[in-house]
């Protein structure tokens, strides 16, 4: 066994990886020609959490999301006074205003101060005109983290158009933005070097003091690739962008049409200017054309302080994602925007969500957890190279281990002491690419303490098998947190936590089988939680989840099965709550849950006449409470007054549609009997109906299951509502196994009746 080293900050892939001094830069550097089965690759940690030094208010997703209210008017004043009839807000509430015209600076995220039943002011705002009856406001506390004091200082939120300089084209773009309701877009076909192309006055005629800050953080979206040296963001001491005080060189961005958060120190270092009156975009020393540079949410930050690239959390731990109680510790959240007053941090969502609609009226975004005001922490990440497409591989496992000799990629190493006392957080920055790919030629690898934020998919398995992933988080992905694609099987996942805020799914199987997840906690705020799907003719089968924790606030299902995915097993305790569509969606296949608590709609999406089933034993965490969900019917264990006697289990079969007729009855297997050859089998069951003639019930041994029983043996419940003991007998001529079923089916009128089955006896003589 050999030991190798990876250090993204100080390493080079051309090194030999034999020490921290000769570490590789990326996992791609650990090439198959060098490493082999059983080798250990130690990966340098990212910085540990640091306290922001203040408390912040965190708010969990409410059970009922607030609706948007129409704005009647707003004032051209500081602060802006908004008229919104019967708003119901109180001082300190956080709201989001969108689509308000004329008084454009009202758009954005605000803490409000109550003025009257129909009025409130926006803390720290300044109007630019009298706004009319346009736009809406919505209370959004769960989408924000509210700081007790600002740690940054806003330069401009880019809600107003900048001034054209030197024949550029400058517009306010309301289709692309990360903060408020717009970004500023600058286009220049053939820029000269070191030339002003757009500027915006700040401070209202007085210089703004940014001397307590050293970096500028902002969102940029570029329609044309940017090379280093092509563009500079500048802070200027005059109102027209002419006298540059601070130059912020925009770094190379090879990808296009992705929003990227940057945090850049001024050229020459030191503090930003003490009397700034405008912000400007200049071409650099080696100018390059652009068909669109979009800028948004430009803020001044301190060197080691909070910025738009920081992750925030209540979590204090340098390492360890599990709490003593077994549930996940708090997850880490990326920042989508910082409000005008610097106090409201919007939690980032997938770009899939953010651009068209900030999803303020749906789940799938924000924070899931306890509502409280606590000390809050930030964590800086390792920023990987920006990639250009959703499917570009950012880092890839390069080799295979062998059974019992996995190659181990161990994150969280202190490069000074060579102890694994932290974690490694990789950050894609722009929600593109696969954070780490396990390809079809690479199996038997182990990773731990590696986390992936803001990629297209965090972990991507492409026909890769027999890998082990422990202590991992994949969050804020544009598409999927953990993607098991194209027959990736026999992979084991342990302590996979906080798979949050991913655009499409937390974890998806498409199709992939026989993977085992143990201790999977907190899969929240995604498009869907778990997506167990496949292709036509092949589902994802026989995956097993143990200790599946909270799957909440996803914008569709907590878990959905499709393409015939079957025989997947989920062993609780676990909890599904506040998922928009339902806890479980399933179109076909038989899948199993045990000891899950489900709130809201439990089951939906059944494919008609597929007889797919969700078996939920010990449902809602209650021993003996069993449910079988299927299309056009439900079967439950009944402990109520309708049962025959109070021992054992009484099953209640309830067809819910006339489609469950004699041709498609609601069926329940009630016994499997090991038969002795030539011996009479007698099966008895007490059966009752809720209506004499609208529903029918039968006790059946289907024919041709075993020699000697060539046709169905049936006993039919009489047309009454009393309990009746039905009896069937048969004599197999060979030893073997037969199933006994009870069927209930609709006969007449509405499908609102039920059948009960209780107290079975089986004898062989």
């Amino acid at each position, binding site marked *: 066994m050999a030991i190798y080293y990876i250090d993204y900050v100080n390493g080079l892939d051309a090194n030999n990886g034999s020490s921290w001094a000769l570490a590789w830069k990326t996992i791609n550097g650990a090439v198959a020609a060098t490493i082999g089965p059983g080798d250990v690759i130690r990966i340098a940690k990212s910085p540990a959490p640091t306290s922001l030094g203040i408390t912040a208010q965190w708010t969990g997703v409410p059970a009922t999301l607030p609706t948007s209210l129409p704005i009647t008017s707003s004032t051209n004043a500081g602060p802006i006074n908004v008229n919104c009839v019967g708003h119901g807000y109180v001082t300190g509430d956080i709201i989001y205003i969108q689509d308000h015209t004329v008084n454009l600076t009202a758009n954005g995220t605000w803490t409000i101060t109550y003025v009257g039943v129909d009025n409130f002011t926006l803390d720290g705002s300044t109007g630019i005109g009298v706004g009319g009856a346009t736009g809406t406001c919505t209370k959004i506390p769960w989408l924000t983290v509210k700081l007790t004091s600002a740690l940054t200082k806003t330069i401009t939120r880019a809600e107003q158009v900048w001034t054209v300089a030197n024949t550029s084209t400058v517009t306010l773009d309301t289709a692309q933005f990360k903060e408020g309701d717009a970004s500023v877009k600058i286009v220049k076909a053939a820029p000269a070097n070191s030339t002003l192309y757009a500027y915006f006055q700040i401070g209202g005629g007085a210089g703004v003091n940014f001397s307590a800050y050293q970096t500028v953080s902002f969102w940029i979206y570029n329609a044309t690739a940017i090379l280093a040296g092509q563009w500079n963001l500048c802070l200027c001491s005059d109102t027209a962008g002419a006298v540059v005080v601070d130059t912020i060189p925009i770094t190379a961005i090879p990808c296009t049409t992705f929003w990227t958060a940057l945090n850049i120190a001024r050229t020459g270092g030191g503090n930003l200017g003490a009397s700034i009156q405008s912000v400007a975009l200049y071409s650099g020393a080696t100018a390059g054309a652009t068909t669109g540079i979009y800028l948004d949410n430009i803020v001044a930050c301190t060197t080691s302080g909070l910025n738009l690239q920081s992750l925030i959390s209540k979590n204090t731990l340098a390492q360890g994602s599990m709490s003593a109680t077994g549930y996940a510790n708090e997850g880490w959240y990326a920042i989508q925007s910082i409000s005008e007053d610097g106090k409201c941090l919007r939690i980032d969502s997938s770009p899939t969500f953010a651009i068209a609609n900030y999803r303020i009226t749906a789940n799938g975004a924000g924070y899931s957890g306890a509502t409280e005001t606590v000390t809050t922490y930030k964590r800086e990440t390792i920023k990987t190279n920006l990639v250009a497409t959703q499917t570009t591989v950012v880092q890839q496992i390069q080799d295979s281990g062998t059974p019992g000799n996995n190659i181990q990629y161990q994150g969280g190493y202190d490069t000074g002491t060579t102890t694994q006392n932290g974690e490694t957080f990789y950050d894609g920055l722009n929600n593109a690419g696969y954070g780490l790919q396990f390809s079809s030629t690479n199996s038997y690898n182990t990773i731990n303490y590696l986390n992936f934020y803001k990629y297209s998919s965090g972990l991507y398995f492409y026909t890769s098998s027999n890998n082990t992933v422990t202590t991992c988080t994949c969050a804020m992905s544009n598409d999927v947190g953990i993607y098991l694609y194209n027959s990736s099987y026999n992979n084991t996942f342990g302590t996979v936590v906080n798979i949050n805020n991913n655009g499409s799914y937390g974890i998806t199987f498409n199709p992939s089988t026989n993977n085992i997840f143990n201790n999977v906690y907190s899969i929240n705020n995604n498009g869907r939680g778990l997506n167990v799907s496949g292709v036509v003719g092949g589902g994802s089968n026989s995956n097993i989840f143990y200790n599946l924790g909270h799957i909440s606030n996803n914008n569709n299902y907590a878990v959905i099965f499709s393409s015939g995915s079957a025989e997947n097993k989920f062993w609780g305790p676990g909890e599904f709550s506040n998922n928009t*569509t*339902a806890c479980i969606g399933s179109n076909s296949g038989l899948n199993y849950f045990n000891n899950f608590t489900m*709130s*809201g*709609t*439990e089951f*939906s*999406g059944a494919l008609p006449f597929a007889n797919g089933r969700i078996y939920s034993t010990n*449902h*809602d*965490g*209650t021993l*003996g*409470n069993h449910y079988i969900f299927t299309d*056009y019917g*439900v079967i*439950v*264990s009944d*402990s*109520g007054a309708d049962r025959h006697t109070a021992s054992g289990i009484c099953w209640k079969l*309830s067809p*819910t*549609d*006339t489609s469950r007729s004699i041709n498609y009855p609601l069926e329940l297997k009630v016994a499997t009997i090991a038969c002795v050859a030539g011996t009479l089998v007698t099966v008895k069951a007490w059966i009752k109906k809720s209506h004499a003639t609208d529903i029918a019930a039968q006790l059946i041994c289907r024919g041709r299951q075993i020699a000697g029983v060539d046709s169905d043996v049936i006993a039919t419940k009489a047309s009454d509502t009393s309990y009746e003991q039905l009896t069937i007998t048969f004599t197999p001529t060979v030893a073997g196994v037969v199933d006994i079923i009870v069927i209930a089916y609709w006969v007449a*009128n*509405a*499908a*609102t009746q039920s059948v009960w089955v209780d107290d079975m006896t089986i004898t062989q003589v």
Partner: protein
Amino acid sequence: MEIVGIVEKYQDMAMKWRVRVSFDDNSSTFLKFQTNPTDEEVFAEANKYISLLVLEKSEIESISAKVDELSIS
């Protein structure tokens, strides 16, 4: 699809309230509540169920259309 009425209402073994609601297409469904719901709460939840069915039907039709399109091409 319109609500006809409440067919039955009871607490299950987990002490959750289950209410069976019937519809004018002769179908029914069981709705779940944490506490004993009023009729108004039941009907509000039943209307959400109807909306969900409509959404699912449109999704199925959309997928079917895509499948047809792929089959043709």
